[in-house]
Structures are given as C-alpha cells and as structure tokens.
C-alpha cells in the first residue's frame, strides 16, 4: 500500500497538526518508506495468536470509590497558558 498526499493531509487534520503543502510532500516519501517496513508484518503467520496489548498479564487494580486527590487546581493552573476565575480559557466555540 502507499499513501497519497491527500491521505497525509487527512491524517494531519485528524491529529490536529497544521501542515503546509511542502511539509506534506516531504512527509509523504518518508511515511511510505516506513509503511514499506511495516508491511513486513503481513508475512507473519498469526493465525490463532492472541493479540498482546500488555507486557504483564495482570488485571486492572480496583480501589474503594472515594476521593483521594486533594484539590490542587491553583498549583496546576499556574502552568496553563490562559486562566480566568479558575477556568481554562479557549477561543469561543459556540456563537
């Protein structure tokens, strides 16, 4: 398989990364080289093999449903780009 320039633009849109025409063209060749490498996987016989998503065969730990975190919003919001009245500010999304 190989990607087209449109595919690169679509992926960049999905990933919310602005990309210029030149950047997309530069990325295209390299991504196709990488997908050629990845294609080697198709040759492996994986019939009946369980997908492995995690290195250790452990189950999710559960805990009592109670609040354990203290309120740290002041400390955390100090590193935010824009905050007002304890709220993170973003451009208006609803007119």
């Amino acid at each position, binding site marked *: 398989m190989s*990607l087209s320039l449109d*595919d*690169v633009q679509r*992926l*960049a849109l*999905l*990933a*919310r*990364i*602005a*990309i210029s025409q030149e950047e997309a063209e530069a*990325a295209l060749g*390299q*991504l196709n*080289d*990488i997908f*050629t*490498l*990845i*294609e*080697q*996987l*198709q040759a*492996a016989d*994986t019939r009946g*093999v*369980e*997908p*492995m*998503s*995690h*290195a*250790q065969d*452990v189950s*999710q*730990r559960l*805990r009592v449903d109670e609040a354990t975190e203290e309120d*740290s919003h002041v*400390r*955390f919001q*100090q*590193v*935010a*780009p*824009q905050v007002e009245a304890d709220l*993170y500010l*973003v*451009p*208006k*999304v609803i007119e």
Partner: protein
Amino acid sequence: MLNQGISELGAALRERKVSSRELAQQFLQQAQRLNSQLNAFISLDPEKTLAEADAADRRLAQGESHALLGIPIAHKDVFCTEGWLSTCGSRMLANFRSPYDAHVIERFKAAGAVNLGKTNMDEFAMGSSNENSYFGPVKNPWDQRAVPGGSSGGSACAVAARMTPAATGTDTGGSIRLPASLCGVTGIKPTYGVVSRYGMIAYASSLDQGGPLGKSARDVALLLNTMAGFDARDSTSLERPADDYTRALDRPIAGLKVGLPKEYFGEGLGSDVRAAVEQALTELRRSGCEPVEISLPNTPLCVPAYYVLAPAEASSNLARFDGVRYGYRTPHYADLKEMYQRTRAEGFGVEVKRRILIGAYVLSHGYYDAYYLKAQKVRRLIAQDFALAFKQCDVILGPTSPTVAFDLGSKNQDPVQMYLTDIYTIAVNLAGLPGMSVPCGFGDKGRPVGLQIIGNYFSEARMLNLAHRFQQLTDWHTRAPDALV
C-alpha cells in the same frame, strides 16, 4: 572524585571526608565546563542543587545513612520535577515548570539524593541519536563528531564525561541501552512495571520503563534499589516485595547458561562490534559461563511491530498537548481548531509529528485490524520466542547496537535507517523483559561498544551479577574520555 563509584562517594560523605555541597560543586563545575561542547544538560540550576546538597548535609550530620544520601544524580528531562523545567526535549514544554514530582523523583528525594540537573533527550523520547531535541543534539564525549545514542543521550553523555556520578533514563525501544552502549557506560531497563511511570512524560505507555545509567553494575544496582517500587498512581505498577538488586552481585557465575541468539550475530552486525562482543564472551567462558546457541526467529519483525504499536500509543498520549492546560500555545489563531492545529504544528518537532501521523493512520477505521491488531499478535510471537529461549538458558547475551556511534547528521534524514539502529533492543520492550548494556571495548574510530544482557522477567539481580563479575574481569567500564576528564 569524579571517577569514583557511588559506594566510594557515599563512604566519603559518611566519613565526612567531603560534604554533599562540595561533591555537588565538583560535578557542577565539570558539567558547566563541558556543557557548551556536549549539550548534555537542558537545565542546570546550581542554586537549587546546592540547596538540596545542604539539606543532605544536615541529614548526614544527624547520622542518617542511605546509599544515595548526598549523592548528585542527574535526571532525564522526561521526569516531572517540581519547580524545575521539565521539557521532555520539546518546544511544547520548553517553559513547563512542573507543579509536581514524578514517583522516581520522590523516591530519590526521600533517599536524600541531590538533583544535579535535567539532561537532554530526543523530543518525547522519540529517537535513537539524540538529534531530535528542541535544545539541539548531544555530542558523544568520546568523539564529538558522533551521536551519543538516544533517547537518553544526555544522561549517558553526562555519566561518560563524569559530569554526574549517575543519571536516570527511560527506555521504550532501547533508549537507556543504546546510549549507554554508544557512550561506554552501564545502563539497565528493568522488567516492565518495576519502576512507576507516574510523572514520567508518556511516549508509548505499554513499553515505557524508567531505569538508571551509571559507571558500573554496582552503581546502577544502587540506583535501581531506589527507583523500583510499587506506586498506586501507575495502573501498571507491580505489587511485589522490595528487591535488593545488589544482593547477588558477587555470586559466582560458573555454570551460568548464556544464550547467544543467532539472529543477533548475523548480517548487519559491524565487524568491530562483533570482535568486541566475542572477546567479552571469551572472558565469560573462561569464568565458567556456558554458551548455548539459541534462536529468536521473529527478530526481523520487531522493528516493524514496534513502529505500529509505539506510534499508535504516542498519537493517543500526545493528544493531551493542545495548548489548553499546560505547555506551549501558539500566539496566532482565530478559533479553537486553528489554535490546536498551530499549537501542535509549532510545538512538536518533525519526528514527533511523523510518529503521531503513523499512529493516527494505524488506528484509523479500516486499518486497525491490518496494522494495530496484527502488530499486537506479532508482539505475542516475539514474547513467545523469549519464553522458549529461557527454557534453554539463564540470560541472553549479544551486542546492544549493530555499530558503534555513527556520525551526527548521517542518519537523521532517513527514518527507516535510524529505526533499524534499535534492531537488537526493541524486542525486550515488546516482551516487557529487563535488558542492560555494559561497556565491552572499543570499535572503529575508538568509539565504545556495549554488551547487551537480557534476562527473564524479574531477573535483574542475576543480570547485575553477571555484569558486575564481567566488570571485575575487565576495566572497560572504568575508561573515560581522556580529553575531558
């Protein structure tokens, strides 16, 4: 002082031959002297470092004793460190002063170790050469035309150039072992789940694992004693009784069965690296280790599987960098979508964007089964290769890297060539096994060679035992670049 191991430095501190402040000053001086050439540190903050050293001196004066109390340690800039810049090598976090400590940092603080500074790295730990840092490449201290390896290149360089006694790193596909190998230092990536990932800025969460780099197996064992341990804030942290990784260092190694994967000694292995590794194997055979030929037949599929799984996880993990809660926000935007798009276009470097795009693709509708699920199945086959191999041997040995350090700029325009640098290290992460690299000689242009030791799950003490014994038979780990030290 700069060449001494942590045990000797610790003894000197406890016997009051030197104070923690004096020790920190000596290493800071070396770090400041060399950093303009080597670029190993992103942040040095002598005021903070010396305040921590003074606190350690007070604890020492009260008779407290811990192996790392008063010892300076540098931290890879992937670890969130309260009050320190924690940039992850990215413009996205270039001004991010962390409001909290990673679990690893908490543990070092509790032990009384002194934070010497934050080391340079490939952006978001994505890279094999440390050329992907927003803060510029790190140079190899043995030959400044060469890369130090990545992504923990700053940490390996700082240890090799004696700018710090030891450092922390992280390893997702070889990022501790590769730079340790190319810079001639010792580094270990423990079994997945041994070191908490809390506060360790995520790249590929099912593969990321923290670990130490130092001058010797003994030093990294001491660091691992502090770094390892259960932490409820990391859902993959393992609840296990605390281990003492120094407990088996001196055990005899006669009779130890060492597996030699034929795939790690085939085509593509540099003749200089092969010669150094074979010399190491000869030494070990003389000490009674028994070589066993083994096979890891799915080795050629490791890099392809990794470059599906790691980018998939990265594209999801890095979605959090949106210019809203922390980090960089573009000054130029008209609406929310444009803010996201330009923030991420300007905040991320080329390699990070490339991996996000790969991840977005392999997870997208219609390709998930063909790529992501397929790669997860191949991951299982790779793990099964190791399970079979460990029925025949106690540890696996081979080269860490197919070549010695390559020249700066020689591979960074060709991602596939760069990715193949990790051919011998990536399988360990996919399987979740522990792996380490120890210096075993020098190859072309006098650049260091590393011997990789791969162990079964939770066999770190055994691997460190073999590494320590090897370091008693050889003096490669004591060598330092003459011009700098």
